[in-house]
């Protein structure tokens, strides 16, 4: 793959362009007619949410980029400071539309950890299942979504169909399709419905078939390869420098996965290896995500096989209408499909949280990292690069 990178690099070294003035600023004179300002967004392009990138373009080369967010800001972190702990549970999920379940889990986990509540075994399994299902439905959009940025819409349609089948399963289990509101402090809100395992297996089989198709459509497609190999390169040295996590870090050769490194729920009882690639371009990130998809199918099957049939699924908590959580603070994390997703929670001992701060992967991916990656990129690759980072603006603004 290495020599391909050289073939497809359309301009060997553009790092000295645009020129830097003596005072450290970029030498961009908008009145010179050599540059134009171009906005990508903030309309909702499909999988990425409302976010804008203010581009300065010279020819078809981006010379400067600035991320603008704020189109989705509802101040959830602040709203939660004025709500009972139980009322935060329907609020927090909205901080990430793509995978709301991680928010539910992290809020519940924070509350339980601060107040020392043990969650029943059955609930732990169900939580693991729901989090993997959330990853599954998210990847079903993201994997073909990368091809979608190159106008290859067919895969997206297949993915959306299959995602809907997963949402059907969510609907059966939790009563909701997108916002599931299933994992609450103390446990979960119900056992698997009758016949759920079989229906799950049917859906998983269809997804396996989809993976073969998507392999043919995307990964063995010359257009996709030409547009992604060597494009959107992330230097492994940036990983710590920019706080890069999840598939973006794994595609750069970092075997970092919260599920493996800081096992939570039932992940230490599941058998899996961390997926990774080394090329660190858009193609490598897509491959990592495809592998994640396959891994998730396997994990769900393992969970289904190991999970007990029955059991208590919620611990008795204090009365939720005036539940005071002991003063203290904690940070809990989980591995979402985009990487490390964590809640920093502070309680002052009252019935409402003092502060909840979400650490979303996009906070660094979509702002400081993206701004850097876009410099010297071709204008046509901008949205591919953005999608390859799997940006999610709601978790930036919260």
């Amino acid at each position, binding site marked *: 793959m290495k020599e391909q990178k050289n073939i497809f690099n359309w301009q060997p070294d553009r790092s000295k362009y645009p020129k830097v003035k003596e005072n450290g600023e970029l030498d961009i004179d908008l009145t010179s007619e050599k540059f134009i300002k171009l906005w990508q967004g903030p309309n909702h392009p499909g999988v990425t949410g409302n976010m804008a990138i203010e581009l300065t373009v010279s020819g078809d080369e981006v010379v400067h980029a600035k991320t603008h967010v704020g189109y989705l800001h509802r101040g959830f972190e602040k709203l939660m400071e004025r709500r009972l702990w139980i009322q935060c549970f329907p609020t927090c999920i909205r901080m990430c539309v793509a995978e709301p379940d991680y928010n539910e889990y992290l809020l519940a986990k924070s509350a339980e950890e601060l107040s020392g509540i043990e969650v029943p075994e059955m609930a732990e399994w169900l939580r693991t299942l729901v989090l993997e299902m959330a990853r599954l439905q998210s990847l079903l959009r993201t994997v073909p979504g990368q091809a979608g940025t190159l106008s290859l819409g067919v895969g997206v349609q297949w993915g959306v169909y299959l995602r809907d089948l997963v949402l059907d399963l969510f609907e059966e289990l939790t*009563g909701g399709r997108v916002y599931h509101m299933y994992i609450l402090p103390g446990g979960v809100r119900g056992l698997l419905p009758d016949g759920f395992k079989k229906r799950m297996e049917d859906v998983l089989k269809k997804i396996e078939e989809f993976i073969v198709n998507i392999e043919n459509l995307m990964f063995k497609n010359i257009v996709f390869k030409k547009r992604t190999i060597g494009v959107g390169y992330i230097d492994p040295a940036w990983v710590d420098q920019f706080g890069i996590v999840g598939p973006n870090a794994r595609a750069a050769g970092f075997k970092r996965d919260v599920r493996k490194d800081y096992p939570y729920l039932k992940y230490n009882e599941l058998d899996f290896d961390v997926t990774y690639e080394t090329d660190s371009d858009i193609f490598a990130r897509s491959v990592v995500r495809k592998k994640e998809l396959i891994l998730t199918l396997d994990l769900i099957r393992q969970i289904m096989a190991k999970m007990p049939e029955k059991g208590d699924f*919620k611990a008795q908590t204090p009365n939720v209408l005036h539940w005071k959580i002991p003063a203290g603070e904690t940070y809990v994390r989980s591995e979402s499909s985009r990487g490390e997703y964590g809640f920093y929670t502070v309680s002052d001992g009252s019935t409402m949280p003092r502060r909840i701060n979400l650490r979303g992967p996009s906070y660094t991916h979509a702002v400081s990292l993206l701004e850097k990656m876009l410099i010297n990129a071709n204008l046509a690759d901008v949205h591919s690069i953005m999608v390859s980072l799997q940006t999610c603006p709601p978790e930036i603004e919260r």
Partner: protein
Amino acid sequence: MAIRDILTPFTAWKKVFREPVTVKDPLNDRPGAERYRGFHKNDLTACIGCGSCEAICENEAIDLVPVEGIETKSGDSGLRPLVDYGRCCWCALCVDVCTTGSLNLTNEYTWVTEDPEDFRFIPGAENKPWDKLEAGWKKPEPNYEFYSLKREAMEELHPGDRDKSFIEIVKGYSKEQAEAEADRCVECGICIATCPANMGIPEYIKAVRNDDIEEGFKILYETNPLPEICGRICTHKCETVCSVGHRGEPLSIRWLKRYIADQVESSEYKRILGTDGIENNGKKVAVIGSGPAGLSAAHYLSLMGYKITIYEQYAHAGGMMRYGIPEYRLPYDQIDKDVNYILSLGVDIHYNTQIGKDISLADLKEKYDAVFAGTGLHLGRSTRIPGTEHENVYQAIDLLNKITDGKEIHVAEKIVVIGGGNVAMDITRSLTRLQNQKYGKVQMIATALESEKSLPADVEEVVEAREEMAIVNPGWGPKSIEIKDGKITGLHVVKCLSIFDEEGRFNPQFDENNTNFFEADMIVESIGQGMDISYISGDIKDSLKFDPRGRVTVNEYFQSDAPWLFIGGDIIQGPDVIHGIANGHKAAYGIDNFLNQNK
């Protein structure tokens, strides 16, 4: 990069011939899942309008509003939730917290109308098409609760440890137990209206939860100056309507009240309640009887600055609370704790002074600006069946009175108690103790007209009496007492079929063929008490009105037609302690109004 990278993607073309995967008619072909969280439905007859749904709603989507045809009554606020679907986020927390289980979600989610106002409605009240749907979100089962449905168990003396002595049975909550019990409260406040004294129950429970005993204590005294007493023997009507009790065990409201009072030392009372140095307003009020009504009136009048003098016929204060209720339920030192505080507010009390005998009501009228009479029910009623004139047939109330005074009473080997109320249980259990002390065994039968299910006594009283080896055998009407050679041998009874007729009048029906005989050599009657208001006589009596049951007619402030005379307690309403307290409190306001009018 190879030629197959150009060709492989074209395999996607074969999908062109696949059946479409879309649902053709989603509105009909695709109902929501069994657990779907769609529009609400509410069983309006089961709902009690406690407002827990409103309290938990994080979007303030729920308002509580009156609904036509639903009455406000004890245990039901008459309000029902109105949901604004412009705000609802379908989280179903309202369903999971619902105290009665009346509120559920359905799997209907496709309904639309043109008028946005239609998306605000009262589920269950507007005949929506989904009101009959079974599918939809229900509270998950089992063992999924937002508050514990189980009471904190109260530690009690075991029957074997208590049936020979008069030591208090109930030990009281520890701090941990009290806080855990207080945590179960959903703060709906439905109980307040059912409490005759309208005590601020949710507030003092909250104070327990927050470990703020002083705050809780202040709240108690706002409406009830006898918390130690009520915390032990109140009939706790509030607990019968507790919203948590609909699906689980109601809050132990009474024990929590006792917990607060138990934590406060007598010496701290005045500091906490801020009752040092009340200014006297120069007016004097006499109170007849130091039962709950009299003490309550004396307390609240004292706080308003009146100079109070209580006249008590016995040697100690407390009335029926002391002379009716046995010590194992209500220890005398606890009565003293409550009473002494009230006396410390500057209340004078004359013991062993009976109105009508030692001093007349007319004298009181002369000496005081107003009089409050709460003389209670101290005359035992008799069944008047043949044999009741025998010397070994007793009135429960007389025996209890003597036990309190520490006087020797006759305790036979075999005793039958007639009556199914709390007083009957009190005398039954007192006598079992005395039998145990004297003979080392219990031969005690308590019988009553009422059937097991409708016994007027508190359930725990009956249960505990049985634990103490007394036989409670209800559902029999006493027929006659058999006397042989001048000695009682037993009680003939006949099966009672019903007590009240269709119009609700007392008219017991018996099955004469079904009889029984309870052996006994002593019989105690406890079928209720009557009042003795002979002290109201002469001109004063003539100026008053009486109802058909012989009770003086009073207005809502317990003022009689003789404007200076206020009457309350068991002789007007009840009989129980908490009504007495409420009457006394209300009468205190009435007296205050009356005396200020005269200015």
